[in-house]
Structure formats: structure tokens, C-alpha cells
């Protein structure tokens, strides 16, 4: 049985957690909970993008042509997928950094979200400007 990194006693973390998060010491539980809250905030963003993608495809048939509609919907859904997956790895990297007391890593999904959101917004701006009155 793996040893607890804090106490030297039996590891209460379970086999899966011990394998994923090896070494280091348990950080302050408030930091662990804060990291989890940030993860949940990213998941909410991902779910909003997911619902947005579905809504574009389902509700904008009268406004957008099929090609543009599909492009925007897929862009939003891909963004939801990347943010959803990336949020877990961000959470894991932050947890590892806190355990080993190293500087926190930069969240790579933040620029991905910014660029993706700006791209979708730019497409919509061009559509609104170019659309005949």
C-alpha cells in the first residue's frame, strides 16, 4: 500500500489518485477546493459553448445559410471539446504544482478560448456587415 506523503501512514487517496498525483505533499485543502472551483468554472464555460453550438445549428436556420451555420456550430462545439478536456489537464497541472510547491502553470486554454471566441465573433461581424439589408 502506498504511503501518505504527509504522515507516512497508509495512503487515504486511493490507488487511482496516488498513481496520477505522485510525490509531493498535500496542499492546504482550501487551495485544492479553489482549484476544483476553477475547474468547474471552465466546465461551465465549456457547457455554455456546447449549448451555444447546438443552439446555432437548431435555431438559426432562418438567419444563416447552411454552410455558415454549420461552420459556427462546429467551431463552438470544437471549442467546447478543447476547453472541456483542457480544463482537466489544467486542474491536474495546478494540483501537481501545488503538491510539489512549484510555480503554477499558465492556463493554455485561456488563449484558446480568447482566440476561438474572437474568431466566432469576427465571422458574425462580417456576416452582419455583408448581409444585404
Amino acid at each position, binding site marked *: 500500500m502506498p504511503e501518505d506523503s*504527509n504522515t507516512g501512514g497508509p495512503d*487515504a*487517496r*486511493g490507488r*487511482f*489518485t496516488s498513481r*496520477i*498525483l505522485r510525490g509531493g505533499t*498535500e496542499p*492546504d*485543502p*482550501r487551495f*485544492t*477546493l479553489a*482549484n*476544483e472551483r476553477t*475547474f*468547474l468554472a471552465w*466546465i461551465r464555460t*465549456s*457547457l455554455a459553448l*456546447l*449549448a451555444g*453550438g*447546438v*443552439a446555432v*445549428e*437548431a*435555431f438559426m436556420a432562418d438567419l444563416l445559410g447552411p454552410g455558415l451555420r*454549420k461552420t459556427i*456550430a*462546429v467551431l463552438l*462545439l*470544437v471549442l*467546447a*471539446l478543447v476547453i*472541456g*478536456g483542457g*480544463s*482537466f489537464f489544467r*486542474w*491536474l497541472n495546478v*494540483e501537481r504544482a501545488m503538491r510539489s510547491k512549484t510555480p503554477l502553470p499558465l492556463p493554455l486554454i485561456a488563449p484558446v478560448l480568447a482566440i476561438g471566441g474572437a474568431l466566432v465573433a469576427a465571422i458574425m461581424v462580417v456576416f452582419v456587415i455583408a448581409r444585404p439589408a
Partner: protein
Amino acid sequence: MVAAAAVFLRWLPHHGWFVGTLVGGAIVTALAINVTQKRRFHRAVRGINQESMPPNVGSTAAVAASVVILAALGIYTVLFLPLQP
């Protein structure tokens, strides 16, 4: 999750039964989160009280995986499922 499932419902007449799996998946995930809520809350309270709390890798990975799978199935629906009249 339930809101996402409700939005998925809008696809049901256009893409058929396959969207039912998306709705079902989102609702099952939402139910699982709701059912385990109390247990996770008590775990967090105990962790703060004892000043040591192991991170919950399994739940975190499960939530992230469910969102990724729903998004992937959504992309598949948009790109490959034909619209039904």
C-alpha cells in the same frame, strides 16, 4: 447539464433517435452529479476540518470526460447526421 440536455432536445425532430443518446447522456451525468453532491460536500468539510484533503481525481476526470464526449457527439451530429424532413 440539464440545460444542455434541453437544448439537445431541439435537435430531436431533425436528427432522430441518435440525439436521444445525447439527451440521455447529459441527464445521466447531471443526475450522477446531483446524487453524489452530499457525499462530496461532507468530504470537503471533513478535509477542511482535518486540514488535509486528497483531490478527487476520479470525479474531476469523469465530469471532463462527459463534457468532451457530449461535444464530440455534437460535432458528429452536425457534420455527419443527415437532416430528417
